[in-house]
């Protein structure tokens, strides 16, 4: 009898001992994995999933320079119109099939049909065809200087390489299977949307030999299993980290940073060289009063970035006043147009608004009530507008409703809007082509629909520039023009450090805006 009991106990203990040998990284991200197709959505969490499962042809490094990733070697013709790419040896999908140029071309076509940056690139591509299973060519109608940067971007819809049969899915529909050739394999059978997503080490993955640098370099799967655990309550997530139940907390709220800094075994880490987030106030250019450029420029008098940043972040260590539209600290930071950002002067703002024809009509603000940064920023803006004597119609709603309503082009009284507040990733905002919010493509642009052909012309010119000096010059002209048009009002930038158990994990690769989990090892 005793032996039977002991045998039973041993049988019970067996799975735990097996699990104990397995190195598991438990990470809490900023959102839960609900969508497994990084092309179908621009959600960052889908991109984090995509970066684990799929590989990309190029990856932009810490200096935002594209480095080959799946590509072994490549050539650019002297006229900069033909790119020839050859894939590395040993690339295999998680189902064991080799990665071929058919897969790559189908994937690029799908990405180029859906993603904003991809669409811009594909606008230049006239031919995309295989030479053999490992080599393919991309022919452009005219030189475009952002080909490699676009293929290596890490924000909003990476250029993920899928199997041909998955990539043939309509880009407006989600792929049914998430099978890539990246460092981790998605365990779909263990996926509990809204709770947990599990990734297993891809033992067949052939990592590059270069040291990891942001989205580039060797993507070494350092643990056997990654569990992205979704803990919606930040207090619970913080306690779980302090208690050692999780190893990695991507975006702890700023209020908790002092507590986490003091917790034993926990460390905070800046995610990269560029701040992770830029704050933006978007005005609706379609309806009065902001269909008048003078009214839009009047709003600059209501922006004291310190007020916003103190409300959102608090500790000056983690924020930076940045009067420009391109991320400060990024390669194209400049002072073009920053003279438009004036001293805070609510009286002057109202005076200019009146001169622009504003007569006290209600201005509708979409006020998110459930966002840790957008909610306080909106409240600061509302207070400034009220101080100026502007008639503010505050429409409070959850972020999901803001996202829906901001797409409406109707006048505010018919369900539309005048103002909403949002944020953009610091890396994307550092580059005029990747920064979609700086565009002014009228009806084809983002919500608010700024319309200025000159801005679009300069964005194109930036993409076609062949030297860095030329790019910097165009970036300055572009920012000047965009600030004059008021594509958005910047209210500063900040960085949310990630928190992790330094006594348990090591090897985190800093990457602003998109947490990458390869490289992490368990002690």
């Amino acid at each position, binding site marked *: 009898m005793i032996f039977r009991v002991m045998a039973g106990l041993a049988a*019970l203990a067996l*799975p*735990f001992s097996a699990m104990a040998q397995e190195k598991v990284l438990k990470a809490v991200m900023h959102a*839960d994995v*609900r*969508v*497994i197709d990084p092309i*179908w*959505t*621009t*959600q960052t969490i*889908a991109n984090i999933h995509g970066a684990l499962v799929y590989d990309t042809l190029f990856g932009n490094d810490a200096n935002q320079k594209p480095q080959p990733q799946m590509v072994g070697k490549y050539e650019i013709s002297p006229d900069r119109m033909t790119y020839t790419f050859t894939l590395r040896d040993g690339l295999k999908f998680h189902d064991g099939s080799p990665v071929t140029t058919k897969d790559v071309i189908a994937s690029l076509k799908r990405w180029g049909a*859906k993603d*904003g940056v991809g669409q811009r690139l594909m606008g230049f591509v006239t031919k995309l065809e295989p030479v053999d299973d490992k080599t393919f060519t991309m022919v452009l109608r005219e030189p475009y200087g952002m080909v490699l940067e676009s293929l290596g971007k890490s924000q*909003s*819809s990476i250029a993920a390489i899928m199997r041909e049969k998955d990539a043939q899915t*309509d880009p*407006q*529909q*989600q792929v*049914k299977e998430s099978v890539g050739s990246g460092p981790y394999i998605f365990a779909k059978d263990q*996926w*509990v*949307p*809204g*709770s*947990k997503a599990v990734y297993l080490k891809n033992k067949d993955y052939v990592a590059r030999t270069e040291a990891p640098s942001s989205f580039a370099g060797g993507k070494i799967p350092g643990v056997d299993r990654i569990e992205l*655990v979704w*803990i*919606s*309550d930040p*207090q*619970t997530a913080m*306690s*779980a980290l*302090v*208690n050692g*139940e999780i190893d990695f907390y991507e975006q702890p709220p700023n209020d908790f940073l002092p507590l986490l800094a003091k917790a034993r075994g926990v460390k905070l880490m800046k995610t990269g060289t560029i701040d992770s987030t830029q704050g933006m106030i978007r005005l609706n250019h379609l309806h009065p009063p902001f269909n008048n450029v003078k009214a839009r420029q009047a709003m600059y008098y209501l922006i004291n970035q310190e007020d916003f940043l103190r409300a959102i972040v608090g500790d000056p260590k983690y924020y930076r006043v940045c009067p420009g539209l391109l991320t400060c600290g990024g390669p194209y930071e400049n002072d073009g147009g920053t003279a438009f950002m004036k001293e805070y002067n609510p009286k002057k703002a109202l005076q200019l608004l009146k001169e622009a024809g504003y007569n006290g009509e209600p201005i509708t603000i979409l006020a998110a009530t459930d966002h840790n940064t957008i909610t306080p920023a909106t409240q600061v803006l509302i207070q400034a507008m009220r101080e100026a004597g502007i008639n503010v119609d505050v429409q409070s*709603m*959850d972020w*999901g*409703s803001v*996202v*829906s*309503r*901001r*797409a409406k*082009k109707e006048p505010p009284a018919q369900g539309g809007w005048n103002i909403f507040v*949002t944020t*953009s990733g610091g890396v994307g905002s550092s580059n005029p082509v990747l920064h*979609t919010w700086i565009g002014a493509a009228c*009806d*084809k*642009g*983002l*919500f608010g629909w700024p319309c200025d052909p000159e801005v679009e012309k300069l964005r194109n010119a930036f993409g076609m520039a062949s030297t860095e000096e030329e790019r910097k010059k165009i970036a300055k002209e572009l920012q000047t023009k965009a600030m004059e048009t008021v594509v958005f009002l910047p209210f500063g930038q900040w960085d949310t450090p990630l928190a992790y158990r330094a006594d348990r994990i090591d090897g985190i690769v800093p990457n602003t805006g998109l947490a990458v989990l390869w490289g992490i090892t368990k002690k």
Partner: protein
Amino acid sequence: MTAYIIRRLFATLPVMAVVALFVFFLLRLAPGDPAAIIAGDDATTEAIEAVRMKLGLDRPLVEQFVVWVWALLQGDLGVSIFSNLPVTRLMAQRVEPTIALTLSTLVVAVSLAIPIGVVAAWKARKLVDRVVMGFAVLGFAMPVFVLAYVLIYFFAVQWQLLPVQGYQPMSAGLWPFVESLILPSVALGVTYMALIARITRASMLEVLQQDYIRTANAKGLATDRVLLLHALKNASVPIVTVIGIGIALLISGVVITETVFNIPGLGRLTVDAVLKRDYPIVQGLILVFAGVKVVVNLIIDISYAFLDPRIRY
């Protein structure tokens, strides 16, 4: 009795039809658009419209309703707009934590509440009564999340006796399973305990004043026999009703407790789906919850006949 049960079961059909109608149209009338949420922050209006078309959300509401009901009649609750997984699979993933939390909470609540209520009634208006009822009022008045954070702070963070969060299934082993449920069921159980204890006391007080209790005492029966066999059984109808309502509420989800302790139950699935406007999940869950409430009410009604022989159907 059988005829009564069949009649009641048939009566659920119009109830479910009304629930289906309301949940479908209320969701569509509420602000929010899943296509915009899916498309994400960097999507253009055209991109959102394209997603909406592919999801069929641009079709007339009546057409969408007919398609949904037709699938429903064939037992198909649909697939999540976001994850593309069947709603039944998503619900199945959440059933075990929900049932485990419901049962463990009931064990905590009932095992404490009934003795407390009985003692309070037995010692009515004495110190014991005031102390236990004061405790019950405190338990009822204290928000669950406050108690939850206090429990987490002491038992998990400070003393490291129990985990802060998470649910471990039975398959992970008995102790991990029990360990993951202790704090949430205590936090939640205290509220239900208070409610059940107060009902038990009130019901017992009424019964203890009956002539047959006086007779039992006069016959010299032991106090415990009088209280438990004669009084409690006859006082049990309202107690069972409250416990039944508690079961229905717990199965429908205890969102705050599930959120604070990070338990992937049906309550969190519902709230997450509402926030994301994942219509098929919300519709499926509300229908299932309505069905559960109807069935639990039926079981409670049937139990009355066993507890009180005077009740006949």
